[in-house]
């Protein structure tokens, strides 16, 4: 504190105790903030007007909400003009109560020594019927992650060279990371070990055990003391 001597309050009350270190204080929960003043946002908006819907930060991560049709253009601009040469990841997220329901989330990174290290996130919304422009023309590394998004959510990528399932088999019925997909699986129609079990006996792939995940009850902490063990 700059006002050192005056920290001793009026009337000779003792100085407040030294501030506790960060790990002994309550967590500082981050919040969304607008980041329109970020230089990168201004540069992108100038180069690609209408492509960026909003720019926000949360916990220091810069997030661009991008028009779906312009996703590849924004990524190309970031790669060529701003040094975001590494594709970190492409993934999806499902918000079934929202229209359109799917998010496609892209993380890009700029690398030293040419640039400072920075990760930016591009987000765009889509639904099952509307494909998203592929990033494989900008980063070849987007190939497998985009296939995974297709596999898990059923989101298609326009212009992708190989839009097939990657982790599940061709012909699998459903997209497992959608919120309505049951955790215990689905009946894919194949009785397993048919030579050991009769037609109505034994496990059937995907029907599960009838076990349902419990409602998220407050978990019992693995620490004995609230606020951390010594």
């Amino acid at each position, binding site marked *: 504190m700059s006002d050192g001597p005056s920290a001793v309050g009026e009337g000779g009350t003792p100085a407040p105790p030294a501030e506790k*270190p*960060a*790990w*002994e*204080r*309550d*967590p*500082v*929960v*981050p*919040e*969304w903030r607008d980041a329109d003043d970020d230089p990168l946002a201004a540069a992108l908006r100038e180069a690609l007007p209408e492509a960026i819907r909003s720019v926000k930060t*949360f*916990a*220091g*991560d810069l*997030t661009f909400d991008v028009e779906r049709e312009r996703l590849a253009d924004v990524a190309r601009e970031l790669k060529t003009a701003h040094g975001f*040469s*590494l*594709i*970190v*990841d492409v*993934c999806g*997220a*499902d918000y079934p109560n929202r229209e359109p329901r799917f998010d496609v*989330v892209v*993380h890009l990174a700029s*690398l*030293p020594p040419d640039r400072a*290290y920075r*990760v930016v*996130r591009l987000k765009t919304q889509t639904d099952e019927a509307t494909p998203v422009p592929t990033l494989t023309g900008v*980063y*070849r*590394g*987007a*190939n*497998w*992650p985009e296939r995974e998004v297709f596999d*898990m959510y059923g989101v298609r990528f326009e212009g992708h060279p190989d839009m097939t399932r*990657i*982790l*599940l*088999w061709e012909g699998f019925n459903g997209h*497992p*990371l959608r919120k309505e*997909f049951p*955790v215990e699986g689905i009946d894919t129609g194949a009785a397993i070990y048919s030579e050991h079990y009769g037609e109505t006996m034994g496990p059937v792939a995907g029907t599960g055990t009838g076990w349902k*995940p419990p409602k*998220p009850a*407050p*978990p019992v*902490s*693995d*620490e004995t003391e*609230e*606020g*951390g*063990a*010594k």
Partner: protein
Amino acid sequence: MSTPNGAPDPSSDRLFTGEEMELSFGPQHPATHGVLRLNLKIEGERIVGCYPIIGYLHRGTEKLFELHPFFQNVPHTDRMDYIAAATNNLAYVGAVEKLVGLTVPPRARYIRTILAELQRISSHLVWLATHAIDIGAMTPFFYCFRERERVLDLFEQYCGARLTLNCMRPGGLPFDLPAGWADTCRRFCEDYPAKIDEYEGLLTENRIWKRRTVGVGVLSPEAALDLGVTGPMLRASGIGFDLRKVRPYEAYGEVEFAVPTAQNGDTYDRYIVRMAEMRESTKIVLQCLDLLPATEGGPIMAKRPRVLKGPKGEVYHGIEGPKGEIGFYIVGDGTPNPYRCHVRPPSFMNLQSLPDLANGHLVADLVALIGSTDIVLGEVDR
């Protein structure tokens, strides 16, 4: 035209003239390090096309993350890259801490750094052992597992588990170090550089080893970046990108270490980079052990609510795992469970470069190439 590793030109006296064959490699081939299937298109012995087929080990980890509270998800991360559980734990708890705004006390930071670097050593040891035995060098396997056992013993003394460690919690650590652990760890780190000399004595200048690895599977820096390759593979291609340096997390800002790089981007250079990384890891562990006594008796867990609730927001947190950047993208929705938790798996992204690496090489080189990408199928398929 001769192949880059100096093998005889397969087009000069090939068995199947002008005809391409399809060869299914794996999924049960021992050199695939798990269950990886490669559909190869070959001309004689030469690979002209390679199409990886993955997913045999898919367990729906990302779906399971959505079912469990933040604390209970740590064991799921163990089972992705099951030979580097500590770094998976570290990436996950780091992402959760970023989401809920926790600050980790210094003693926990040092111990986490020690565990992560020991894990890097043990992961690289498994890589070296299996990579060498794939190429035909049997002895390094026994040497590597001899030292790996000491690392696993250290993990066992710390948390009771040897592979699936579950040794970190959002906000800190579950346990402090047991008595005498630091001394055992220091003894290991002091012995270990001499053991690396032993491995290098067996391999680095070995003519057969060099013949099998030099010039095999060259990955240019541009192609590596384009494909999203990270970790030792990227550094062997001449790009010195290491998250521990560019965004120091945990205690990496307080210790000194070098980022080994190489220029050629071939299998041999990837070997050289990983060997040098193990030496740097021992230095980091020793420096953290020196920093530990000052925090003796200090807290190892941040003040945190009994139930962690993720705020409505999303974070990405990536760290430098033994295989490359392992990151978590977590979306919170105000409940104790993550709404969405996505893993950025380094093996998955690095395996994507395999068709590029394999093109034009012999089928026998493919085994060396799979080894040098250092994949764990548990993480590729999740």
